[in-house]
Every structure is written in structure tokens, then in C-alpha cells.
């Protein structure tokens, strides 16, 4: 052992060790490589737990932020929990294309889908990506398929929309139902700006904006207005920046 107790080393890491102990550890670190490595390992563990939990939690869901905002009823009112009737309630409230989504997502599961299978959820401001899809949209680069709990998602491209916001075109396959959509970052959420079922994602993983093979999504892209496509470096930068809107560009 190194001469300091677990409690002392832990307190040192937290800046809570008393002055004498802290000074002793500081001195020991100058000559004791094993102690230095152990402290570094403990710091690494802390970071893994913290980063892992943050990634697992993802962005703050609208049902929480809505609770604190004026005039914005919490989106959980109609079924943010996976209870059996929730999809039917949402179905009646959503736009036709969103209703098609619900059909696609829940087809064949007789409304027994779990929360993790819900790719898109209703919110006060309209449909937004569910937790798994949001995590994929936030962290994945375009190209390779991403296997979520119950669906496979592929992000085709990322682009800057009119106004500076950042959006991503994606496809999803769920129980042999294929669909494509466009999601645009709005605050901490991914707003779903368009969606259609029945499309067949290309095998190469990339698409051109407004490609002729996907008329609905293309129309959606035209409506949103593609200002600039993000290349790999720009996409990585956007991921690291949390998909904040670009500034100084229109």
C-alpha cells in the first residue's frame, strides 16, 4: 500500500483532504509512480461513470423543461409513459405524416411497444425524436447503420438549414417497415420536420439532398431549405458543439 487510506486519497481527489494530508500526498506523488497511477485511475473511473450517465440520460426531455416554462403544458400529459393507449391518443392528435409514423413504428406490436421502441414522441411543440433516436442524431456520424433497441437507424446526411439551424436526414427500419425523415435541432431536442414510411434506404449510407429516390423527404428538404451540407469535419464539429446553430451565416 502507499501509505494513505482510501478515505484520504478519495478526499484528496475531491479537494477535501486536510492540509497536512494533502501536503503529504503532494510530496509522495513526486517520487511514487504507483500512487500517481492509482489516483489517475480513480479519476478515470469517476469520468467514466459521469460521462456514461450523461450519455445515457441524453438531452433534457421536453416533458421536464416544459414543466418550468410559462404557457407550455408538459408534453407528458398525453402518454409520455408507455401505457397501452398512448399511441392511439397521439395518433389522433398528430399530423397525417406523423400518424403514418405511429403506424410504422408500432405496426405488428399491438400497442405493446415499450418506451425504448418509441422512435418519435409527441410534445407540446410537435413530434420530436425519442430518447434512442435523439441519442443517435446527437452523437452519430452519417453513414453507418446504428442498431437501436428495436430499430435500425441510418443517418444519411447533415446540413445547415435556412436560418442557421442544423438538421439531419435519416432512415429507420423497424420490423421490416422502412421510413425516412428529417430532424432539426431545436434547443435540446430534435424536432421531426418530416417523415414518410415505405422508403428504401440506399446501401451506401449517403444520399444527396433532395434526391429523386425519396420525393417526400426531398420535398421536406426543399421546404426547410438546405443552405450547406456538412462534410465529415463539420459534422464532427457539430457533434462536439451539441448541434448549436451556426452563427454569422444565413
Amino acid at each position, binding site marked *: 500500500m502507499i501509505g494513505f487510506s482510501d478515505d484520504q486519497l478519495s478526499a484528496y481527489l475531491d479537494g477535501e483532504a486536510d492540509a497536512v494530508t494533502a501536503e503529504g500526498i503532494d510530496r509522495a506523488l513526486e517520487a511514487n509512480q504507483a500512487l500517481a497511477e492509482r489516483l489517475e485511475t480513480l479519476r478515470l473511473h469517476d469520468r467514466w461513470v459521469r460521462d456514461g450517465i450523461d450519455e445515457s*440520460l441524453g438531452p433534457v426531455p421536453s416533458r*421536464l423543461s416544459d414543466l*418550468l416554462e410559462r404557457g*407550455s403544458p408538459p408534453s407528458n400529459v398525453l402518454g409520455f409513459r408507455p401505457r397501452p393507449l398512448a399511441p392511439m391518443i397521439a395518433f389522433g392528435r398528430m399530423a397525417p405524416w406523423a400518424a403514418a409514423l405511429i403506424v410504422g413504428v408500432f405496426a405488428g406490436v399491438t400497442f405493446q411497444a415499450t418506451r425504448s421502441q418509441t422512435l418519435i414522441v409527441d410534445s407540446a411543440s410537435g413530434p420530436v425524436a425519442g*430518447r434512442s433516436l435523439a441519442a443517435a442524431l446527437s452523437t452519430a456520424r452519417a453513414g453507418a447503420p*446504428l442498431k437501436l*433497441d428495436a430499430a435500425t437507424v441510418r443517418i444519411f446526411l447533415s446540413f445547415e438549414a435556412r436560418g442557421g439551424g442544423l438538421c439531419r436526414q435519416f432512415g429507420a427500419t423497424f420490423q421490416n417497415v422502412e421510413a425516412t425523415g428529417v430532424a432539426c435541432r431545436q434547443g435540446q431536442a430534435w424536432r421531426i420536420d418530416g417523415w414518410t414510411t415505405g422508403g428504401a434506404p440506399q446501401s451506401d449510407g449517403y444520399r444527396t439532398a433532395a434526391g429523386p429516390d425519396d420525393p417526400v423527404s426531398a420535398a421536406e428538404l426543399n421546404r426547410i431549405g438546405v443552405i450547406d451540407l456538412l462534410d465529415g469535419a463539420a459534422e464532427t464539429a457539430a457533434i462536439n458543439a451539441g448541434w448549436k446553430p451556426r452563427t454569422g451565416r444565413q
Partner: protein
Amino acid sequence: MDDCENEYHQGGNFFTRWSVVRLAMTKPPTDFRSNIAELMPKLRRFAFGLCGTAHGADDLTQSTLERALRSESQWRPGTRLDSWMYRIMQNLWIDQTRQKRSRGPTLPLEEAYDVVGEDARETLENRDMAARAIRAFNTLSPEIRSAASLVILNGQSYREAAEALEVPLGTIMSRVARARRVLEVALGEDSRP
């Protein structure tokens, strides 16, 4: 349903739920609310530390926010809002856990990391270690998890954590150290630099 999902959010208490909705719809934002909003990341992390799952954490966070909004008059300005919120959250969690006979938290790997594919390959190793770290974290007793959540996850001082959890400062120190020791044993040599 895990420990942190409650019947309230399953639609059980409709009228209470709508009273909260009306509250949210009619009250303007206040410093109280904006201060709570700033605490949201820390509240969710603490909730995850207690519950062990992301969806359980968000359910518990929601219950906490609703309780806090209903109890705003009980908060004394000038005192620490974060400590007050942590106490609400912990009390809610204890109540829920008692009701559900204190089942231990579980965290399937796919719950923590459900995005796995070629695109994530380069970070898979780190993610695997993080998933293992979370699993080890979830094996800790609730008392140790709550202390470790405040200090390790949220960066609270020992004094702040002691105040929030209403335990002696020395207890916080030993619980945090215990958490780190468990992580060290669980993750073993793989994590040596």
C-alpha cells in the same frame, strides 16, 4: 416498472396531474423556476444515481419538479435550492422504493448504450468501460450511491452533500471513498493507465 417509475406517471392521479399542468400553464417563469432549470442536469444525474436507469431518472426528476412547484412556498430564499431539491428527490425515491419493496436497480447494457453500430466502433471500448463502471456503480448500496452521486457526478463539496443528505460530513467522505474502491475493484486492471 422499475423503482423510479411511479403510478402517478402511469396516469393514476389524473386530477393532481392536471393541477400541475394548470400551474405550468398559468404561472410566469420566476427566478425559482429558472434556478431549478439550471439545476436540471445535476438533478437528473442524482436521480440516475438513485434509480440506475435513464427513464427511471427522468420519472423521478419529473416527480421532484412537480413536488417542488407545488411546494414553492416552503422553500426559504437564501437557503440552498439544490440541497432542498436533492432532499425532495431522495425522499420521493425512498417513498417509492418502500412502496415497491426496495427492488435493486438494474441497468441492462442496452439501456445505458442503445446506440451501437459501426459508427460507434471507435468509441466502443470506452463505452464498454463506462457501461461497466455504471453497472459497478449500481451495485453500491443506495446510501453510498446517493453520496457518490452528489460528489462524484455533481461535484458537490462534502459539506454540501452532507447538508443535502442530512448525514455527518465524515459519513460522506467514507461513502465516496467506498464507491471509488468498488469501482476500482470492479474495473480492475483494465483501467490502469
